[in-house]
């Protein structure tokens, strides 16, 4: 875990540097001397992250150096990254087409895409799951809880 922890620390350092850079653009109010100013809190937190990341690197340095190549922990097993990317991709595509097609068609497509991706063979499941899930959620949210779900810009 030593090497992974060092990578984690580096990612957090990059994040803190980014926050420090972006905080330069935050406007400062007139009441700044008394209320510490708008950018101060995020800056203080960024310095905190830099210190903690340094501690994480320091405490894992020895372990990371002594880790043998064959013992190094891998973040992703073979094929995992592809599975996760496709899984997330389907969700993102579902959300994007929801803007155009509305809730019902987009969620029908999203659910069906997941079932196909998971290699579900049963035709019954392929037909019923997307329809039942989408319609049940739509009825509960739209009618019972009066939460308006997107209707889409194409059919509106």
């Amino acid at each position: 875990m030593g090497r992974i922890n060092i990578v984690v620390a580096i990612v957090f350092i990059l994040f803190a540097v980014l926050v420090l850079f972006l905080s330069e653009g935050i406007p400062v109010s007139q009441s700044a001397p008394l209320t510490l100013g708008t950018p101060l809190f995020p800056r203080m937190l960024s310095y905190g992250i830099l210190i903690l990341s340094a501690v994480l690197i320091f405490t894992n340095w020895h372990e990371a150096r002594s880790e043998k190549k064959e013992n190094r922990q891998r973040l992703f097993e073979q094929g995992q990254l592809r599975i996760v990317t496709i899984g997330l991709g389907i969700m993102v595509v579902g959300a994007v087409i929801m803007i155009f097609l509305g809730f019902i068609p987009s969620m029908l497509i999203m659910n069906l895409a997941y079932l196909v991706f998971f290699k579900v063979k049963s035709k019954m499941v392929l037909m019923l799951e997307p329809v039942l899930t989408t319609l049940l959620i739509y009825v509960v949210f739209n009618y019972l809880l009066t939460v308006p779900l997107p209707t889409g810009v194409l059919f509106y």
Partner: protein
Amino acid sequence: MFTNLLQGFISVFTNPAVFFFMLFGVVAGIIIGALPGLTSTMAMAVLLPVTFGMPPDVSFALLLSVFCGAIYGGSITAILINTPGTPSAAATTFDGYPLAMKGHAGKALATATIASSVGGLISVILLSTISPVLARMALKFAAPEYFALAVFGLSIIASISTRNLVKGLLAGFFGLIIATIGLDPISALPRFTFGRTELLGGVAFIPLMVGLFAIPQCLMEMESIFKQGEKPKDVKSELLTWKEIRHITPTIIKSSLLGAFIGAVPGAGGDIAAFTAYNEAKRFAKKGEQFGAGELKGIAAPESANNATTGGAMIPLLSLAVPGDSNTAVLLGGLIIMGLQPGPLLFSKQAELVNTIFATMFLANIFMGIIGLLGIRFFIKTLNIPKQIIVPIVLTLSVVGSYSMNNSVFDVFVTVAFGVIGYLMLKVDVIASPIVLAIILGPMAENNFRRALVMFDGSLSFLWTRPITIGFLTVAIFTIVSTILKQQIFKRGVSR
């Protein structure tokens, strides 16, 4: 007190409408609470217009039952699919989900149900007995006390980061920075909004929570779907034994009292109460109790505390007309619409209604317990549904849940973004709960620290001159130091 409660019971049982709407409210509340993205406040706000034509006792029976049921309902999905239905159930995932994964979902749900029910009952008893005293105490809280309470809450990050304290603290700091996105509440100047109006109010909490909890879990399930030879889990529907009930009883009582007190503090809701109670239960853990790995007390503490805030939040509302949280703000609206003025005079002028409110909350918590225990067999059936079917359902609910908070597709993308962050954090063994805790408490800490500075003309003397502030800060320091010492002792033990 008991005469008042008895009068309330009589009016509930002699009015079938009150009784019916109370039962309906409990069931509706449980369902709404279990749906990620729908909060008790939202449910009450949706139902408020429905109550306009109802008599006050019937309308309050409905609203209060929804309130109690929804707080409990959040625990069901927190335990079964690691997705807290409401923010106050976030702490329940720490031990609820691991216990469910060990095949003891029945025990986990029974613990949550009993703890929620008892927590609610204790808070109602407190509400009907010592509400004026507690309300006066809670109103002594000004900016310095709120800041200290937030710091105390944030100190919990140390105790929940058992595997690696530094990584837990890093996650907490990351969450605190995310919490600064939006308009600065003191100067109203934008921070990290990148010109997006959606970010002016900050990162919405529900999409973030759904992203950090539900999406990574679904991605991990996807990985296991494609793994060969993965066996389905054996899920038991067994409930708690008497020994286990005795084991969790002291935790439930302590957490309920803590939850009722935190609920009475305006602005501190069920989420803060749940995290605080979890931390306290963990701090006083006995040898062999493995918090974070399916410990029953780890479910009992947050669940009793968050439901105890229901009665606690009613204390300042009824006795001083000060809403303790967003739920009671909706109730205050309801009271005013009905032409009633909460405050000390309510107890003398509308004694019958006040008694009915106490009795309704009392009975709603009992029925919630009964319905919850009866429903466990049905709830755990979700764990037997094949992953190939449950994953699309959870992801659809995640999309709807994150969208429905602000009716914004932008929030769905926020969910996806935090889903990726949560998944990567899971891979590198950084826990996500400090982020949630930091986002709840970060704005409270920053705003009140800066307000306190204004109150004290830029001096930091409020940190050592106000007794309640000193008390909270001392406990916070003690929590952090004791966690570090415990971890050091544990490490030495392991290396030996």
